[in-house]
């Protein structure tokens, strides 16, 4: 099967450190897979390797059969792979409106860009009231919403989410996770969700991958992982 994201024996260095060792997994459409593990487990590096920001040392990654190797982030966006990087990936100096427009600049189908823009604003109505404001005047939660909304304007098929809950209040986290749920269930997106907040992530994900020091130590359905007492004490500390 070559549908969806297929990662095989991927090894990635982060600087001089071997951050990811020989990892294999898949994510298909309509599916959300959570990548969990402690700080420094290599979660963010994995996403960077998949979005073209870091070149892997060895192994392969394909999306619907197309190799992701040696492609720059901007080319991967054109294949439908959009990375929402850690720390509210918006451009603070631009307005909300302009940040949203960025996601559609490269697209030819301007009608669908407008439609995607409307969809994004329907998903996060608060943004519609902030369009003319500079992004650095938004709250942390609103910035995260803007980052996701901007990604959606690119009409992604695979969303790479890096720690969307980082530094946000529980109520806002719920709102963001609800949105991710909607994107998977209603729009059929494949989502790879990196989270330190393991329990919340597993609660909405279909499956989970547990990373420890760059190695895939466990994978399984979310229910399985949530019920695994060893896993809790050994890697997740909850």
């Amino acid at each position: 099967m070559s549908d969806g994201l297929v990662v095989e024996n991927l090894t990635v260095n982060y600087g001089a450190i071997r951050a990811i060792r020989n990892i294999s997994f898949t994510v298909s459409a309509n599916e959300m897979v959570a990548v969990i593990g402690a700080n420094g487990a290599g979660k963010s590096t994995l996403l960077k390797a998949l979005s073209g920001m870091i070149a892997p040392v060895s192994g392969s990654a394909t999306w619907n059969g197309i190799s992701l190797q040696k492609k720059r982030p901007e080319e991967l966006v054109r294949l439908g792979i959009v990375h929402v990087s850690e720390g509210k990936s918006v451009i603070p100096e631009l307005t909300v409106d302009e940040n949203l427009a960025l996601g559609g600049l490269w697209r030819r189908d301007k009608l669908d860009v407008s439609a995607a823009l409307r969809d994004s604003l329907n998903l996060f109505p608060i943004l519609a009231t902030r369009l003319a404001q500079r992004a650095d005047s938004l709250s942390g939660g609103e910035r995260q919403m803007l980052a996701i909304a901007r990604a959606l304007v690119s009409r992604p098929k695979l969303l790479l989410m890096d720690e969307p809950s980082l530094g946000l209040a529980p109520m806002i986290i719920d709102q963001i996770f609800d949105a991710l749920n909607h994107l998977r269930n209603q729009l059929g997106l494949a989502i790879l969700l990196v989270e330190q907040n393991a329990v919340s992530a597993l609660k909405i994900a279909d499956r989970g991958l547990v990373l420890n020091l760059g190695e895939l130590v466990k994978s399984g359905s979310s229910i399985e992982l949530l019920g695994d007492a060893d896993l809790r004490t050994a890697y997740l500390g909850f």
Partner: protein
Amino acid sequence: MIFIDTLLLGISSGAIYSLMALALVLVWRSTRVVNFAQASQAVLSTYVGYEITMRTHNYWVSLPVAILFGAALGSSIDLLFMFYLAKKVRSGPIAEIAPVIATLGLLGLLQSIIGLIWGNSFLQYSTPLSGKGFTFGNHTVPFSPQNLLIVLATALVLIVFGVVFKFTNLGLALRAASFQPEIAQLAGIRVGRIRNIGWAFAGAAGAVAGAVITPTSVLSPNSLDLLLVSGFIAAVMGGLDSLVGAVIGGLVLGIGFAFILQYVGSSVTFLAGFFILVIVLLIRPRGLFGHQLGRHA
């Protein structure tokens, strides 16, 4: 009468500084590099304009050629030097300073190349416009058709690039790529290509500056060096990021110089430029038109 004459004199030289400052701001806005080679790029474009005028005897033919050459030169500098430099030094404090130092090196290199081709003597590059001031009754003001051309060119550059940056998709991409290249990339923007267009724009603006300013004096490999200093002061006063700020900074400087020259004396004018800069930065560290929040805020 003396007051108005001094003001006009200030506006004519201020427009020159503004134009130079605009070119510097354009590079900064699209690449986040303070480009010291800007002066030599502009001079080289002006020499090309000079050559065309020598052959065609028509300044108005040489002007667009010089502008196109300036754009091509800016783009090539990015492709041949800056692109590789950015690839080699990616992180750490050196990543921010290396491109700036490289532009200093390019400044010297381009000037030497110009010297090799055209020699170091002064050349005359003139427009068909008169450099003599307009006359009202029997009073001649220190503002000539040549000065008018400079003011118009400044206004045109300001309006054209202001509109491009603020209201076009290309302008949005340019701003995004310069503020946060990584995020711009993740949004699907081809940052390398966009930056290259930024270098071309700045090169074109510098060529406009060189082509309309040089006829007020002479052409030599480093004839724009002093103007680069004034232009840089004007750009910093304006906040380095604002096109309108660059123009106002240039005018403040030009008018300031003119009044100091008139009422204080010629020995202190150049010093006064730095004095004005220090005062402005003390009162408004981000420049007259700089943003309230820094880029890392």
